[in-house]
């Protein structure tokens, strides 16, 4: 026991700043290393270790590479807070920038550019410039990273940095390509003129670039292509584009002859084709981000007849982790609204498993609903029946919504769906019943003609159901179609007048609404009842309800003061109302570029770069021409 205590206190005392300082000043590397490890441990835990700065910075020139590395870690974390002291380390880095070992040069540049001390901006600028012509591509890669760091430290340097970017864009190393395009996207994404001459090289290097760089380059090239090529879609609707590799290399003579036959033939720019051809193999990447990047490129750039090739790969990603599934399903949801055909063959891949997390289930359901058509609806409805019974009630409710959407979109099954939903009204679970009521209400609105029976059924439900939305929906239905259920409606008003004070605000509003409608159509039976309800409403605690009461009374009860509107009260309350549209929440989400954070959030994230519309006339393709001698040399 005693031993333990001693040991523990010994460890604790070594963590004291004073002791750590002593260890850092010791002459032995092992003590220093030990101290640095402890300090890094503190940083990792989020503890403040800034007071050790003077003692740590002295070790920046240590011969021991691990100590040095850990000092770098420390500097990157605290230099910003201790700018003056941080300057002490600069000369060490400047020396290291000239080291014969490329790893040391690169890491010196990394730290120098990471310490975020404004005073050293000129030194950083110089270091970046020099590193950008270093013989080692690894150092040049680090230079590309440093560009962004300097830019965020001092945006004034933009022009100079663009010069470096321009230079590095010409670099032929696959190691540099991804990093410099990243810098381009952060610093000067609008300078597409810098891309022209490098476009073909980037397309050709793409397969050999590391995976992270591939994602960045593909996104950039998608934006580029939308400014430089004409739309391949215009012809899609009437003429099926007949594409084959040879088409583009046909002689001019043949082309002219064709032009005479077809009014206006669309010919894809060979550079546009190059991009599509060179990105396609990347659909086979093991990296989900790369596959998604290619998929969005095909979505935004390929002729519609070709975009289908990405479906299979996207469906493959659904086998991945739940987070990957989540993002991929969101993107498929957006795609499947506009181009059902792309995913119809994979319908069953979106079937829900009881072990899926709820968010995955609802997204799959969304896609299944988007894919529903006359041919597959009966299979789908059978599948939905299983989902409605799910123990996950939130998901069951979502399924009911989905059935409602299928019912409005596919008229053949409207009745079947409606009957199914009515059956659910006798379900034991209140969430299920409530959701069914809400959906039935929306469906009845689209075709109220022959559904008196269902309305009666729902009126009976009112005695038991407690969910406010559902109660409100039933009351609205009865009020709206009170002339179809002339015997029941007044009785419902009677019952709810009794429970008025205990109802939710949402329900109260609908009771008032029901009263007003009955007053206008059947004042003989309901005049007194309505006035009673209006009196209750007048003294309600919620001013929303008091407001509504005052408004309704003025409108329906004629008196001298009531204005010209009273005459039209019936027309106002019982006007034909447009049926609600049951739409996917993913509709129109594709105004955001697919695969982006903004698409996932459905709102513009900072730094989102808009995808431009296709130009009507393509800008001069010759800007991408590179001198022949040069292009030959990088082919070999």
């Amino acid at each position: 026991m005693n031993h333990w205590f001693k040991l523990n206190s010994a460890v604790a005392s070594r963590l004291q700043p004073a002791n750590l300082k002593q260890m850092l000043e010791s002459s032995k590397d092992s003590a220093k290393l030990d101290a640095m490890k402890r300090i890094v441990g503190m940083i990792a835990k989020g503890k403040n270790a800034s007071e050790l700065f003077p003692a740590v910075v002295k070790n920046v020139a240590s011969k021991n590479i691990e100590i040095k590395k850990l000092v770098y870690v420390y500097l990157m974390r605290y230099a910003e807070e201790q700018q003056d002291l941080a300057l002490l380390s600069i000369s060490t880095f400047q020396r290291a920038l000239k080291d014969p070992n490329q790893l040391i040069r690169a890491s010196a540049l990394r730290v120098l550019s990471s310490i975020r001390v404004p005073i050293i901006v000129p030194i950083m600028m110089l270091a970046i410039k020099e590193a950008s012509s270093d013989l080692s591509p690894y150092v040049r890669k680090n230079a590309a990273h440093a560009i962004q760091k300097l830019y965020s430290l001092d945006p004034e340097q933009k022009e100079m940095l663009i010069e470096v970017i321009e230079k590095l864009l010409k670099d032929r190393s696959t190691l540099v390509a991804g990093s410099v395009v990243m810098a381009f996207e952060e610093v000067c994404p609008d300078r597409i003129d810098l891309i022209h001459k490098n476009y073909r090289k980037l397309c050709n290097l793409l397969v050999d670039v590391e995976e992270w760089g591939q994602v960045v380059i593909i996104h950039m090239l998608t934006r580029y292509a939308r400014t430089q090529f004409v739309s391949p879609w215009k012809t899609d609707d009437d003429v099926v584009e007949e594409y084959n590799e040879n088409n583009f290399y046909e002689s001019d003579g043949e082309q002219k002859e064709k032009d005479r036959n077809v009014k206006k033939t669309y010919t894809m720019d060979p550079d546009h084709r190059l991009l599509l051809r060179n990105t396609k193999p990347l659909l086979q990447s093991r990296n989900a981000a790369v596959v998604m990047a290619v998929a969005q490129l095909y979505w935004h750039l390929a002729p519609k007849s070709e975009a289908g090739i990405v479906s299979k790969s996207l469906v493959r990603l659904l086998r991945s982790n739940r987070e990957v599934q989540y993002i991929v399903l969101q993107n498929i949801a957006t795609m499947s609204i506009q181009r059902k055909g792309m995913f119809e063959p994979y319908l069953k891949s979106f079937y829900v498993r009881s072990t899926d997390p709820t968010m995955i289930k609802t997204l799959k359901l969304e896609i299944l609903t988007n894919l529903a058509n006359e041919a597959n609806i009966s299979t789908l409805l059978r599948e939905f029946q299983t989902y409605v019974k799910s123990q996950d009630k939130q998901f069951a409710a979502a399924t009911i919504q989905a059935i409602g959407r299928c019912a409005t979109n596919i008229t053949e099954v409207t009745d079947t769906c409606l009957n199914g939903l009515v059956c659910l009204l006798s379900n034991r679970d209140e969430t299920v019943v409530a959701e069914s009521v809400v959906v039935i209400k929306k469906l009845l609105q689209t075709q109220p003609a022959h559904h008196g029976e269902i309305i009666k059924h729902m009126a009976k439900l009112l005695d038991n159901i407690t969910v406010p939305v559902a109660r409100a929906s039933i009351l609205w239905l009865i009020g709206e179609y009170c002339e179809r259920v002339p015997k029941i409606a007044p009785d419902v008003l009677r019952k709810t007048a009794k429970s008025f004070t205990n109802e939710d605000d949402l329900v109260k509003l609908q009771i008032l609404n029901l009263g007003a409608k009955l007053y206008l159509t059947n004042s003989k039976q309901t005049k007194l009842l309505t006035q009673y309800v209006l009196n209750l409403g007048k003294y309600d605690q919620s001013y929303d309800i008091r407001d509504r009461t005052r408004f309704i009374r003025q409108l329906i009860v004629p008196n001298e003061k009531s204005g010209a509107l009273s005459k039209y009260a019936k027309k106002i309350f019982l006007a034909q109302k447009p049926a609600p549209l049951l739409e996917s929440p993913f509709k129109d989400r594709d105004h955001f570029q697919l695969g982006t954070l903004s698409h996932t959030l459905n709102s513009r994230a900072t730094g989102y770069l808009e995808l431009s519309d296709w130009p009507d006339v393509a800008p001069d393709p010759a800007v991408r021409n590179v001198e022949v001698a040069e292009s030959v040399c990088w082919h070999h």
Partner: protein
Amino acid sequence: MIHSLFLINASGDIFLEKHWKSAVSRSVCDYFFEAQERASEAENVPPVIPTPHHCLLSVYRHKIFFVAVIQSEVPPLFVIEFLHRVVDTFQDYFGVCSEVMIKDNVVVVYEVLEEMLDNGFPLATESNILKELIKPPTILRTVVNTITGSTNVGDQLPTGQLSVVPWRRTGVKYTNNEAYFDVIEEIDAIIDKSGSTITAEIQGVIDACVKLTGMPDLTLSFMNPRLLDDVSFHPCVRFKRWESERILSFIPPDGNFRLLSYHVSAQNLVAIPVYVKHNISFRDSSSLGRFEITVGPKQTMGKTIEGVMVTSQMPKGVLNMSLTPSQGTHIFDPVTKLLSWDVGKINPQKLPSLKGSMNLQAGTSKPDENPTINLQFKIQQLAISGLKVNRLDMYGEKYKPFKGIKYMTKAGKFQVRT
């Protein structure tokens, strides 16, 4: 891109933080905790959480949330895929990825993270390269380091970083040269009440363990490559060769890696190797329910089914179950309502069964849905799709390596609705 990373354990403690740009206060995680509270289970925490100034992207693995802080537009999959790569790397370095392991090796973790990202952009993510930059801790090395004062940090740039094969380290030497390939297929299926298949597909992977000296160049060919409908490769595979000849040609990374993932085309009917006979009934007004399941072999190509495990999430109304298995052991957790039955091997002469009764909460009505049964199983020496490796050849080196290929079929997401 990635601003900061926070590691959060199951009880909601932030046990590691790392910043690649200016430090972001850990109070940003409050938004994450809020979302965590709203989600009933860890699985339901949304992977993307917007906050007023940042966006939190997270992955959940090994009971740890890896939360990345993002400040501006970035493809979300980019971050998510990267976070998964971080977890894979930790697993590769320490054998397991757990809170204790990460805390014990915090310095190595920090050094690795430092190399993986620069200014929030991935720098080195190939494990072969990372291991040259920062050596993984081993007991022997720890001892040697404390005595000699040498370090875990390499001082030369890994040559792979610069070469055309960035995934392979150089100077690899083995006394025994071996290359093992495991063809592992998983069956994903949903079987309906009556035993007919609603959907079934086969997904496969080829995992390799290659320990070969020098720079070997391998080719692997199949007897029936047409079976492979959709494939994704490790970056080492030469895509053109596959396109033209359906041959996998590659210079492998050193050690363990996934060479290929594939999907077997949907046109081929999937053989379902097991069936489940079930009789689960609840009655209204009775507090007893009946439960009976039997598992049996179906299309197994004469192989034994082993490692069978049956799990099922029972409805909330089930208080307890008294069951007798004909073999294996079973557990019912009355809190989570999870029933699991470790069956073991299936003997076709004597089919395993689990029978008994369920105690239901008195007064509640019977559940709408019978529970779904999840099945796990393994079949050795069989690739259910029929995929067969034809040959494996090595070029570029003189020695004769030992080669081995193993097949296995497993249940993936295999569900039986009852």
